[in-house]
């Protein structure tokens, strides 16, 4: 997977980078991307839903309870998500990752 922007790589290096990271032993990182699901440049709630569901599934199915930390270095406005989901005539499309 490639970082579509630059922010995720920066965060990953701070979490577990060899020189710059805080944690250095026994920790694995699982990057999860959701903004690829943007439609005409606007993020979709369904894409966020997909990613959150995947994370939850990953945690539950791999029995990671008590060992999982979800880092969210950002903030998205729900009204911008609504904008696409409920726009008349817009059909939400499956995301392409």
């Amino acid at each position, binding site marked *: *997977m*490639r*970082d579509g922007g*630059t922010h*995720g*790589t*920066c965060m*990953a*290096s*701070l*979490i*577990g*980078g*060899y020189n*710059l*990271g*805080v*944690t250095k*032993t*026994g*920790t*694995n*990182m*699982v990057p999860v*991307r959701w903004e690829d699901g943007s439609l005409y440049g606007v993020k979709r709630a*369904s894409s966020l*839903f*997909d*990613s*959150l*569901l*995947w*994370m*939850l*599934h*990953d*945690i*539950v*199915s*791999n029995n990671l*309870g*008590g*060992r*999982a*930390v*979800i*880092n*969210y*270095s*950002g*903030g998205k406005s*729900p009204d911008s998500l*609504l*904008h696409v*989901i*409920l726009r*008349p005539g817009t059909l939400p499309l*499956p995301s*392409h*990752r």
Partner: protein
Amino acid sequence: MLYRRIARSAIQVVVPRTQAKAAPLTLATGIPVSQWSDRSVTHNPPRSEFNRYDPWYHFLPLFRDADAVVVCAVGNNAEPAPGPNSDDDDFEAPRRYARSDRHMTDSLIVVGGTNRHGNIWLEQLGSRLVGTNQFFRLITVWAPGAVMTCAQAGSTGGVKQDRGTSLATAQVSALVATFLLRPDLVGRLQTPGSVAVNVKSFVVEAALFHTGDRYDTIKVLGTHNYVRCNNPTPPPLVDPATKRDENGVVGRSVKLKRAQNVPVRRNGVLQPLTNVSLHLRH
């Protein structure tokens, strides 16, 4: 309740099946037709309706129940500094759910940023200094967020300096991961069903300093033992050309290896995802 219902049923159905193979998931949402045609509702939903359509609102309790800890940034919009009683936290997710009157106040960790001296991070905006952390009522813990050195995506193995509560959040997330790994904290943190709540309370306890009641009297809610909060000297830069592996980055992304035994859904739904894990150098 829409997403909560979907998520619960999806977990019940998908998880057992995907133990063996990938399972397709069909998602059909029942949005009233009237809302599709009512532009005033479509584009300006009442505030009370936001939660219904925000996936974070429904998933955060599920993560908590699954004993996963969620750490999010408070944001740094650099708007004119709100006071500690600002209501501006109504529109951004997921941090807004950590407010004292909302459903994730006990387990969602929200991180604010300090400067490298451990004081509240202010920046010059015109002729005055403004706070860059937006919503003080939501902040659980502070960590360094200004002038941090991190990987430079887009250059091969390079580093850069960046700023923001995002960076502070990443450090606290890593810190929480180390807490969860420490054998001496198992008894304190690893209570099934309460891990996220325990971790949040422990993070606040472990912080060295506490905030005052007023945002301009914040000293630090710090993590000095673990991150470079008080170190005025950034770590030495590594030559990107010869030692790029030591930066943990290659090209535009961190070094990644596909995780083993991770279910992948096909036919356009949720697939290759992001099913990759970073194997760190130790």
